[in-house]
């Protein structure tokens, strides 16, 4: 569980980016943080594993305060973080070396490291590339390697910071599948994105605007709110909301994609 209480953050240059944020991330949940470029998403989540310390307020991870140097080690093991640029989080020459980096830092025995590396690589489906040079991989494969590298630390909570934004649409959906699988298997997920479509699967969506929380709720609530305020939502949702407003489909329907909306309107026999 991650808890932010009254968190504000001011960059050293005086840039106030977060303003009095309260968030509580429950175990096992899937939370998407949605926001435009520069809204403070990265700044926010970097508080969740102690990369940044709040200027004001408290951040705690499973009861440990990120401001306490004694706990930072345990916090980083508990909260794994995957970043946006697949090319600038590689720390080894080959896939297995890169994945081994975390467990090596935990000073584990080499047999245990091997076991964790094999498991983590299997979890992202890169078994056949274990020995490949990172230089020879695609962006999507690199990003899977980065996820495996974090999984090898066996964290309870996983944070993804716009991990798909530099990938093509195929790799994007593969990565999203991996993330959803991990959540189904019990990992707590915080998923940062500026693509609304990627927020649909979440249990909860938090919309960040200029460093404050503009809305927070289930995807249905949040997208309804965004739609009601006249801003763009994914096209199939806009259609669904319009049909609901016109009384053509039930008001509790929240279709994940165009196909499920079509099923709602005319079920296939």
């Amino acid at each position: 569980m991650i808890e932010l209480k009254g968190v504000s953050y001011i960059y050293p240059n005086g840039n106030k980016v977060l303003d009095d944020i309260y968030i509580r991330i429950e175990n096992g949940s899937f939370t998407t943080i949605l926001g435009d470029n520069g809204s403070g998403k990265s700044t926010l989540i970097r508080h969740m594993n102690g990369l940044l310390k709040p200027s004001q307020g408290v951040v705690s991870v499973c009861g440990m305060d990120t401001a306490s140097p004694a706990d930072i080690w345990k916090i980083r093991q508990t909260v794994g973080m995957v970043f946006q640029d697949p090319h600038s989080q590689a720390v080894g020459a080959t896939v297995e070396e890169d994945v081994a980096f975390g467990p090596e830092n935990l000073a584990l025995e080499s047999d245990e490291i091997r076991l964790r590396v094999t498991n983590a690589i299997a979890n992202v489906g890169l078994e056949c590339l274990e020995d490949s040079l990172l230089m020879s991989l695609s962006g999507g494969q690199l990003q899977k390697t980065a996820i495996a590298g974090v999984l090898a630390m066996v964290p309870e909570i996983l944070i993804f910071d716009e991990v798909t934004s530099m990938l093509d649409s195929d790799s994007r959906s593969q990565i999203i599948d991996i993330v959803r699988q991990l959540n189904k298997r019990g990992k707590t997920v915080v998923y940062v994105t500026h693509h609304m479509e990627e927020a649909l699967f979440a249990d909860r969506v938090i919309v960040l605007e200029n460093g404050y929380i503009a809305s927070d709720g289930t995807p249905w609530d949040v997208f309804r709110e965004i739609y009601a305020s006249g801003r763009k939502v994914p096209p199939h949702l806009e259609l669904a909301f319009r049909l609901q407003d016109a009384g053509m489909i039930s008001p509790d329907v929240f279709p994940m994609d165009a196909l499920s909306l079509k099923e709602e309107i005319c079920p296939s026999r």
Partner: protein
Amino acid sequence: MEGFLFSYVAGKSILHGLDPRVKIFSVMCLSILIFKSSALVDLLVFALLFVGLTILAGSGLSGIMSVRPLLPIFVFIFLIHSFFTEGAALFNSQFSPTYEGLLKGSLVTVRFVLLILYGSLLTSTTRPAVITAGIERILRPLPLRRVGVTSFEIATMMSLALYFVPHLLWYAGQIKDSQLSRGSKYRRNPISGTLSLAIPVLKGSMRMADDVAMAMESRCYQGNFRTSLFELKMTARDVLVCSVVLGVTALVLYA
């Protein structure tokens, strides 16, 4: 990635199985011996030894061929010595190689080629990560802390460079391509061309370095102590090879 300079070629030979420390130590001893030999005949022995070891490594010619990109450098070293060594001129012209130059040039070049070849034999039979682990273990007893680093930090730096350097080259290529496609005039003015490439590459590499540092920090990196996926264990065979190499080196140097 075959044909890459100093690339690793997977295999199960005796050379592959040796402890990296033994291999690094042996290459160091061989380098000293090669530098000490002042006759081409002596160097022939090292060349034959190299051929023998290459056959033993079973990596075929790919290890040797990987040094091909260095060929111009070899030629350059040879020519410089041939032309600029004092001695009897070969041709009756103002600018001519000398007999002494040819001799010295071949000696220096063959030495250099042999050093590179033995280096490539080390890297073609040892994974980069294992070499780094070996170097780390060799450095560990040194009092590096006094100069403010640890053996682990040095090893991590090396393995980071293994990805970072080729990636940076690739990145520079990308920027150059995008500048060319936007009509930049490299050909006409090489100086401003280089500058307009260097600045974005420098900026990009600083950003990347920041990002990598953050990724490492989130994965619990601290330079004080870490273990390795590739555990190093000295076996009886390693000790044997080490003693033989040490013995032979001592014999040649002091006898």
